[in-house]
């Protein structure tokens, strides 16, 4: 693992390896900049070196301040895909939560080059 964060009440777990980023939990940090900057920085470093990168998001809830962080991260991933990196992003949501399905659909605009799919799941 290159970078990891433990899940807390207000922040998701983050697992970043050379080919994969997995984010699981809830995201409404006390301080969004403090939470997001190391993630953005580390993912940027990984994207400079890799050719294939998989991203999995399993968020149960995120607040509006976190939406901007997610959008920035997704833009960075899409730029890397535009530069030739093979990037697949999966947005997983609980099948009975149309609120998080809609939230995932809102980010479709960020993706032009990378693959982005919404995946309903029975239980996260």
């Amino acid at each position, binding site marked *: 693992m290159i970078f990891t964060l433990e899940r807390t009440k207000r922040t998701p777990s983050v697992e970043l390896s050379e080919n994969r980023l997995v984010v699981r939990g809830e995201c409404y940090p006390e301080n969004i900049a403090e939470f997001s900057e190391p993630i953005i920085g580390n993912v940027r470093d990984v994207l400079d070196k890799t050719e294939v990168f998989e991203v999995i998001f399993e968020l149960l809830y995120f607040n*509006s*301040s976190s*939406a901007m962080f997610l959008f920035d991260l997704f833009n960075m991933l899409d730029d890397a895909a535009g530069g030739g990196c093979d990037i697949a992003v999966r947005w997983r949501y609980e099948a009975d939560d149309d*609120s998080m399905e809609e939230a995932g659909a809102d980010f479709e605009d960020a993706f032009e080059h990378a693959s982005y799919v919404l995946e309903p799941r029975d239980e996260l």
Partner: protein
Amino acid sequence: MMHTQDFHRLLIERNTFFCFSGPLSETALSAISDAVKNRVFEASDKRSLATKIFAVFIEQAQNIIRYSAESIAADDENESMGIGTVAISASQTGFVIEAVNPIRPGIIPKLERNLIQLKAMSGDELKVAYTERLKSGPPEGSKGAGLGFIQMARKCDRFNFEFAKEDEGSTLFIFKVEIDK
């Protein structure tokens, strides 16, 4: 002062199952958010409904922390703290999430214009406003993403706001969000 028994009855009568009033900080919000989440999930039988109520509660609470005109010094000087009230109640059609806080008069005209615009928008128009704001970044004067009111407008079935003048000259901002079952 209102009798304690009457205060108890008042909350019961208006079906208010959660209420916080006073100085609110991110630390205080962390301490109460689990209790609120558990209560909201117990009160609503659908996950998507509970997520919406909780999401609106967090935006309301964070607006008080960031924008209340009244605050007291927090222990940590980096932490902002705002005074206000946030409450969640059951209603005939679903749930009501209310927030009240003193507001600086200078920001009222812009906020009022913004909220009148949001109130007139359809669901599709709100989605466009949301994605446009994501692309353009936070507006001047915003301490968050400037997305909070748009998100609340999208998640609710209706909302109302009021700028209520107090006797001593200050103004209270009241924001009331309704989510149907």
